[in-house]
């Protein structure tokens, strides 16, 4: 029982972080019908920006509430800028070209970034893993069942940050003028343009939002796993992509549910079998969902016109 509860806690904590990354995939897919394979690498860049700023704060005497907020803010702002650059210079010129062209470009950017970061020229970090500074001192926040189940403080913070960002996104998408424009563009960007909506700007901001969420997720990952390396984006990005597909790509609540399910499944596999089974089961779960419900759990069945 205590094991089970601990696994649920750990699974939810991993799942909410996946959810932040999955939201970026699903939002960009929503407006562009493009799988942005560089998204995981944007997350990795955000983590490194967080790492660099954390080192600065560490030299200046430790971490307070303000410095942790500043780390999140800097990394999210940097990633929003990176997202804008990628959209503006890599995807926008291909807007009217076949979708496959943009998809291959996305894969190209992903490789360029993840392998580029393994160089050790100038500011690039080089291939060796780094340890993310302990920006939040790890302490049990709550212990249950005579100390057999621990809810850590960083897990609580990670929950709170992830849920806060998701709630903000939900509000933005469903309650604001930008969200309405985004949903309209997602539905039919040509019609939206004929109603006076600057569709390119809506798409650019969607990229920036998705990238900022990924940066937030990257720092939460780094707080959880400590180890960061240039290839982390590929693995975590792929997992988050799986989560978005399980939930039904293009669907905001679907991405969250898919990510939490994936987090729980992985944690149970690690807890009850062997950790080497984790990825096999995660992708097996994807195949199962796609076989039974190809549109994803929350996706809408669309009839292809022939």
């Amino acid at each position, binding site marked *: 029982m205590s094991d089970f509860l601990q696994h649920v806690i750990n699974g939810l904590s991993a799942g909410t972080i996946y959810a932040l990354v999955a939201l970026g995939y699903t939002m960009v897919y929503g407006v562009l019908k493009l799988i942005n394979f560089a998204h995981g690498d944007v997350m990795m860049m955000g983590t490194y920006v967080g790492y660099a700023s954390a080192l600065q704060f560490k030299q200046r005497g430790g971490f307070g509430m303000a410095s942790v907020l500043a780390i999140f803010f800097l990394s999210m702002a940097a990633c929003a800028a990176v997202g804008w650059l990628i959209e503006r210079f890599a995807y926008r010129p291909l807007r009217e070209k076949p979708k496959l062209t943009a998809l291959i470009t996305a894969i190209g950017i992903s490789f360029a970034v993840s392998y580029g970061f393994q160089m050790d020229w100038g500011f690039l970090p080089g291939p060796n893993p780094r340890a993310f500074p302990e920006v939040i001192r790890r302490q049990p926040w709550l212990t249950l069942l005579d100390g057999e189940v621990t809810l850590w403080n960083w897990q609580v913070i990670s929950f709170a940050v992830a849920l806060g960002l998701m709630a*903000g996104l939900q*509000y*933005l998408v469903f*309650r*604001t*003028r*930008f969200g*309405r*424009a985004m*949903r*309209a563009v997602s*539905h*039919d960007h*040509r*019609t*939206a*343009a*004929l*109603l*006076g*909506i*600057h*569709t390119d*700007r809506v798409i650019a*901001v969607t990229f920036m939002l998705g990238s900022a969420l990924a940066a937030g997720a990257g720092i939460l990952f780094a707080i959880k796993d400590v180890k960061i390396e240039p290839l982390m984006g590929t693995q975590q990005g792929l997992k988050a992509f799986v989560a978005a597909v399980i939930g039904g790509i293009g669907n905001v609540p679907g991405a969250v549910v898919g990510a939490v399910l994936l987090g729980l499944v992985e944690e149970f596999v690690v807890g009850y079998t062997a950790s080497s089974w984790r990825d096999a089961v995660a992708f097996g779960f994807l195949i199962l969902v796609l076989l039974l419900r190809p549109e994803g759990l929350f996706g809408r069945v669309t009839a292809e016109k022939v």
Partner: protein
Amino acid sequence: MSAPASDVLLEARSASIVFGGLKALSEFSLTVRKGELLGLIGPNGAGKTTAFNVLTGVYQPTSGEVRVCGERVNGMRPFQVNRRGLARTFQNIRLFKSLTALDNVKVACLAETHPLFSRARVESLQRSGLRPLATALDAANDYYDWWRALLLTPGFQAEEEALTAKALALLEVMGLAGRAHEEARNLPYGEQRRLEIARALGTRPKVLLLDEPAAGMNTREKAELMVLIGQLRDRFGLGILVIEHDMKLVMGICERITVLDHGETIAAGTGAEVRANPKVVEAYLGDAPAPGAGGAA
């Protein structure tokens, strides 16, 4: 709007478009003035929707020009043409199906917002050749607006309420007041057509282009819709251009009619003039029922 020249809201001058050697539209000229209701008719494939696409900036004319309120819009993108005062509906309904009727209209109500830099200022900068600056100010407007929404400033909330009120008023004009919170996809066909008009009106157009607004409606519904369209023109002081297959309806409400066939303008004038034109008779007899027979679909 006292001088007659400024009454011209939409003007096409010899606009032509060629697709791979095929002249889809040739030497298309048309003038829509404030308060006018014009008809654009022709057999299937005559180029009517192509003409709409050229007017709204979806296609760039190969030659000739289009002017909206006196300003040349060739080379502008559809959203820019729309902001100059031109709105349209679509032959195949193109609502945002998963949005509510209210949200469909609110999406279009961009002109209701109170930007950081006024639209007039942005447009005058654009006219005077300072395009990058105009674009930057326009972008600043959008980003400012979106941040305000996120930070929930009181001004934003008041504006949002005004926007909802405006959109509800438009729904009411189109007889959709009770449908505001239904998803567009769930509305009956005739109501979807009217919702498209409400959405187009949300952009505060000066000219409204309606692409077969009565398609798929029965005779009574069509007649009601045409009366409604006449009322919209009077109420909002619009110029309206309607594509319609049903000659009888067009003759009934439109002051002037342009007839297209194979991309060529084969006749233009009042209903009686057009009906008497042998070319029109020929074009229609070769395709569908004769002019005046009505009900061609």
